[in-house]
């Protein structure tokens, strides 16, 4: 058997199939994408979070209107570091702020008025995105009809997302809902102003701390025209013509493969998976795109220039980091995106975990894992603490909620969700990534923890 029941889970044995010690002779994948054990101190979020926070939220010139009581809007106001060159989507938080009266009599009128008023106050908004929260699903507001009515009145698209928090098992369903909604209601509603044989969309790239601003120019320097980025620093108007791309590349393969597949199936646009983290994977992505567009020479030129500039810096960091061991805990894809890049820095990942990974995520992890590697599906706070204490990694790359727990245990930490001092993608971003690991691991502060206070 390769599944494990950690000590903290003895009272909840149903966690056992979610935790696997990798044995290539007898490979087992963790059970995944199922309901959380109630009360297990999960780190998971809700479907609304996946839809509003991850996929819909980065669209920079949409009025992001949350239909529900105030909390859900507040908590997604300017939190994820999905940057853009305008401020509408991060600076402003729009909510229908439902109260008891609306829960009893319905929130339809308030929603309609809120859409119209938001448009009047912010005419620069190219569309209104309306996200339903738990209570809206329960009271049964017909948000679809209200959005249609509002759109006719204000003359810009009003898109309803049915992403009530209680649906599904994690954020993951929210990604799917956002993809499907944008595909069904937005993609194909307008044609690009011009078409070239080199049009490509970068899908599943949310411009966290400026990742897209590093990635996009790499492809442009090769002679590829980036038609849209889905959805990092995207304008609403970038989404309708996505169906006219010649190729889609998919970076976040958990949250956004859905739309790439739907576009492929309906419009015949092929897609390829890429990992734009680390030197080797970024090189591979540029080569794959070069091959597709017959721009191989251009790709090699960009690769040569980038490696000449950044590989020496990476080599320097490798000297400082060689032999270190780490944990990676991310939503899903970054867990396996980063295992290869860690090895480029001489770092071995001894434990991976994902909040909402599906079977294909765990297959990708196991392809890269060495025997003895621990892999946890939907870990909870107690499991994380137990493994940090037991295996003592040199550092942990997770999300903010795990950061201060890790610090208390005296273990260096990097925020992999919003980053410390990113961007982390592409060649240049990998140098930032290496630098942040170096800062975390080699800071003198850790030595003070065990420095004795005694009277001599």
């Amino acid at each position, binding site marked *: 058997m390769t599944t494990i029941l950690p000590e903290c889970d003895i009272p909840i044995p149903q966690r056992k199939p979610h935790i696997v010690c990798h044995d290539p002779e007898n490979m087992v994948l963790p059970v995944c994408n199922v309901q959380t054990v109630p009360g297990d101190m999960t780190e998971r979020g809700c479907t609304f979070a996946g839809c509003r926070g991850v996929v819909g939220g980065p669209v920079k010139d949409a009025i992001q209107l949350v239909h529900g009581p105030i909390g859900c809007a507040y908590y997604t106001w300017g939190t994820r570091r999905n940057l853009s060159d305008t401020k509408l989507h991060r600076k402003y938080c729009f909510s229908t702020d439902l109260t008891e009266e609306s829960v009893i009599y319905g929130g339809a009128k308030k929603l309609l008025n809120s859409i119209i008023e*938001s448009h009047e106050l912010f005419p620069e908004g190219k569309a209104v995105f309306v996200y339903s929260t738990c209570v809206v699903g329960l009271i049964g507001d017909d948000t679809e009809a209200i959005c249609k009515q509002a759109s006719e009145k204000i003359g810009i698209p009003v898109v309803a997302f049915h992403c009530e928090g*209680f649906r599904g098992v994690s954020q993951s369903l929210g990604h799917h809902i956002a993809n499907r909604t944008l595909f069904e209601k937005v993609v194909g509603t307008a044609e690009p102003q011009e078409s070239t044989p080199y049009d490509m969309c970068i899908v599943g790239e949310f411009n966290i701390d400026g990742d897209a601003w590093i990635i996009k120019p790499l492809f442009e320097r090769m002679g590829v025209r980036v038609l849209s980025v889905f959805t990092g620093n995207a304008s609403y108007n970038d989404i309708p013509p996505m169906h006219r791309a010649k190729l889609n590349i998919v970076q976040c393969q958990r949250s956004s493969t859905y739309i790439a597949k739907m576009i492929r199936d309906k419009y015949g646009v092929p897609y390829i998976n890429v990992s734009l983290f680390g030197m080797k994977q970024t090189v591979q992505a540029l080569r794959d795109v070069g091959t597709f567009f017959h721009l191989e020479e251009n790709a090699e030129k960009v690769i040569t220039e980038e490696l000449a500039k950044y590989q020496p810096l990476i080599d320097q960091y490798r000297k400082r980091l060689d032999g270190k061991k780490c944990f990676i805990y991310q939503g899903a894809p970054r867990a396996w995106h980063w295992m290869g890049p860690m090895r480029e820095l001489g770092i071995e990942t001894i434990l991976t975990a994902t909040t909402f990974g599906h079977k294909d995520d765990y297959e990708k992890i196991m392809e890269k894992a060495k025997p003895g590697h621990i892999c946890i599906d939907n870990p909870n706070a107690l499991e994380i603490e137990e493994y940090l204490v037991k295996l003592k990694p040199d550092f942990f790359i997770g999300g903010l909620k795990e950061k201060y727990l890790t610090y208390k245990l005296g*273990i260096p930490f990097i925020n992999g969700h919003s980053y410390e001092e990113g961007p982390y993608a592409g060649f240049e971003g990998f140098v930032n990534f290496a630098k942040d690991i170096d800062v975390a691991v080699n800071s003198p502060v850790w030595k003070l923890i065990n420095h004795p206070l005694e009277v001599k």
Partner: protein
Amino acid sequence: MALIKQSEPIKTVRKTRSVTINPPKMCQPMGAILAYMGVHGCVPLVHGSQGCSTYPRYNIARHFRESAEVAVSSLAEDAAVYGGSKNLTEAIKNVKSRLNPAAIGICTTCMSETIGDDVKLISKKALTPGDKMKIFPASTPSYVGTHLTGYDNALRTLVETLAVKGEPNNKINIITGIINPGDIREIKNMLRLMNVQSIFLSDISETLDSPILPGGHKPALPDGGTSLTDIADSANSLGTIAICRTAGSAATYLKNKFNVPSVLDAAPIGVINTDRFVQNICKLSGAMIPEEIIRERGRLIDSLVDVHHYLYGKKVAIFGDPDLVSAIVRFCAEAGMNLTVAMTATKHKDFALDIKAVNSEYKTDTQILEGTDLYEFHEVVKTHGAELILGNSKGKDLADDEGVPLVRFGFPVYDRVGVYRYSIMGYNGSIYLLDQMTNAILGHKYDPDKLHQ
């Protein structure tokens, strides 16, 4: 400013729009979790969707820079149809068996309240006879009130569940409301100087500001917090002082049920409000004002004298939770500042009265915005002007738009370090706040030549 004539009657502005834009308020579970986090050995358990625990945890982590462990019953579609009783029962069982906590503090959500789960009954059934673990079944629907309502409901539930009549304990109950660990430590310091024993309802000063210890050893649940025994004993105290009136319903409960005198008064910020706090302590406990407190007060007045040339007439706008805002408004008036706009998103019956009292005493004309949002606040600030803005991190963009500094207070502050560590309460804390405000003004386009004496 003292010399301004009142041009028009001060009206309380309330939002007339349907849409809320940039609300400086959160939902009830957020506040309830904070109340529970101040109880020793208590694990907060949110009965709702997973986002309802994850989002508040994120907010706590980024303000206090501490981990905040919160359980959730992970309600899903089946609960929407069949009710959430099964999930909550299982969640209680799992938290209990894995963490063995002294108590579980339940917060309900919009979902569990709308589907109509009887949380009191479910919690009662989840306990076995003779169970030592306590469960606090607070009702905190997100569509009623704000984070402050949630704090108040959870705190009252704590006291209702535990308080029992016994021998008089000669202590004062202090209801803190949502304030920082630094504030609580300062209030404790004042009580120590006055030789008054106390029970804090509740106390996050250790649980949300914990040390890193040698070896990286960390307790399963955070050290500190008010013990269940002390909460039970709150029925036997000399009196209760709520320094945040929005959190005062537990004080009223103790008064009605156990005849514990209650004082719901202004937060101790500034000279006169801190004086009132000291007087209230003396009245309830019979303590005398010690020399050290008189010297602290003197240092605050000395600080005000030192900076009055810099602050007099300076236009300030403030937003935040009502108790903190109205106390700081009075303090700014004491400093001779011209407080142009005072805004709170949480409605409270005393808020407008407090500001109007300051307006009438100091002949100021502070505009009052209640139950509205930061979009409206910004519009009013544009009209009435501000050279300094006071508020939490959500004021950053509008302060930048106005080209004025933002002095951060309240919750959450995530774009500066250490704000939770320092007190803005008591005479000492007021000095700190005063210096923050003055230095913000001096550090922002102030002619450096004028700073040479």
